[in-house]
């Protein structure tokens, strides 16, 4: 209807990924078309093996599609050379993973400042910003702790601070609450939503955590590598009640 009014930060066109496993073809993604607006909080939902992690990898430029295109800010990602791709990962996209993926030998602060080092920021600037980011995620007093000295929730907070290091336009999260207990998971979701609202950053989260639906502007349901349906916020509310009922 009024699509031209919105500026899409991510668009995928005929996006397909085919893996060949033991001679048989597995279609992890099958002609996925998805447009994501700037500043949106989008959850990509689906059972494990549905292709949501594959979609995450394609949007994040972590893997190449078999067919189709991913546009970030209307730029075809396949056209980028290695330097431009690194630049994109460094500056435009912040990644959050299920397993946190902090660098184990570095302290919380060093982890957060690493993307800033790559971006060419001076040490002093990076340290100031790193401390500030850690404070934002509620870990101001844990800056010199190594990942092994932090709980899962704390590690994920460090990872979130790191994802925001270079003020990205997009936060890509792959099952960010997958390794966390219910309460910590909720805290992380709240934090992500807060960052989404305060920093106007687009959050795209692949998940099967139903708690995520609550804060999402849109929910994209994926099954067998295809988009099953896309729900807008207005439609979602009813479903949440229903599903929480099922869960309990």
């Amino acid at each position: 209807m009024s699509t031209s009014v919105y500026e899409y930060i991510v668009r995928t066109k005929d996006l397909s990924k085919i893996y060949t496993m033991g001679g048989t073809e597995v279609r992890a993604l099958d002609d996925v078309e998805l447009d994501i607006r700037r500043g949106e909080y989008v959850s990509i939902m689906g059972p494990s093996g549905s292709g949501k992690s594959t979609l995450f990898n394609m949007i994040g430029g972590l893997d190449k599609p078999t067919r189709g295109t991913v546009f970030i800010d209307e730029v075809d990602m396949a056209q980028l050379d290695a330097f431009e791709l690194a630049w994109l990962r460094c500056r435009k996209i912040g990644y959050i993973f299920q397993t946190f993926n902090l660098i184990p030998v570095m302290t919380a602060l060093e982890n957060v400042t690493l993307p800033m080092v790559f971006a060419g920021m001076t040490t002093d600037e990076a340290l100031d910003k790193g401390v500030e980011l850690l404070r934002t995620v509620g870990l101001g007093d844990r800056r010199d702790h190594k990942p092994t000295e932090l709980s899962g929730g704390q590690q994920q907070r460090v990872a979130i601070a790191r994802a925001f290091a270079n003020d990205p336009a997009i936060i890509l999260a792959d099952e960010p609450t997958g390794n966390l207990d219910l309460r910590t998971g909720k805290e992380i979701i709240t934090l992500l939503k807060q960052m989404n609202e305060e920093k106007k950053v687009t959050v795209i989260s692949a998940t099967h955590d139903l708690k995520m639906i609550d804060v999402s502007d849109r929910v994209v349901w994926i099954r067998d590598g295809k988009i099953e349906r896309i729900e807008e916020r207005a439609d979602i509310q009813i479903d949440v009640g229903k599903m929480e009922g099922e869960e309990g």
Partner: protein
Amino acid sequence: MAGVIEEARGKRGIERQIVLPWSRALQMTRESIFVRIGRSVITALGIFLGVAFMSAVLYGSAAVRVKANVDAQQLGLVHETAEMQARTIWLVAMSLVVATVGIVNSMLMSVTERYKEIGTMKCLGALDSFIVRLFILEALLLGILGSLAGALVGVVLMAIVNAKSLGWAGTVAVWKETAVVLGSRPIPLWVGVLFGIIIGGVLSMLAALYPAWRAAKMPPAAALRSEF
């Protein structure tokens, strides 16, 4: 529309670059070595043993020459050194081959264990060359440290073993004595040991090159999937 490419290309010059300063790379390498000290020691051990063995062989060869000079009546020894010559070169070459195989193996392990970390770094904007640089630096440091320790241990042990027969003057003289003759060039012991330390660092660096390059080339998604 302010596209990604334009932004990246336009300002590649000063501000909008992707960098890893050498000082920072060195600091990361140092931390990595000390935090994973167990793994680092195992990696360095191959080169340590190789260089220790090589130094000991060279020392032994030089010591024989010193003794031959001191005891001029034992003319037979001069003949034997020519024969020993081939054996010394062969032993030195073997020790280096064994050390190289050892370090290639442990570098492969050490890189494989860190696939996930490599994938993460690439997500944070690291270029392939950063990954290679970090591993090369680490291998070079470990190689040099391992070789230094190896040379020290090899020489000191041989000095102790030969102390009685060489005497104090002999132990000092042995340093400048020919340890091995390459072509027609006599190589003094100290040059041989120094060469061993340098070759230890270089071999270790070369051993890291292939695994690091291969790991850096991996798509981040594949690197992140690996579990260790």
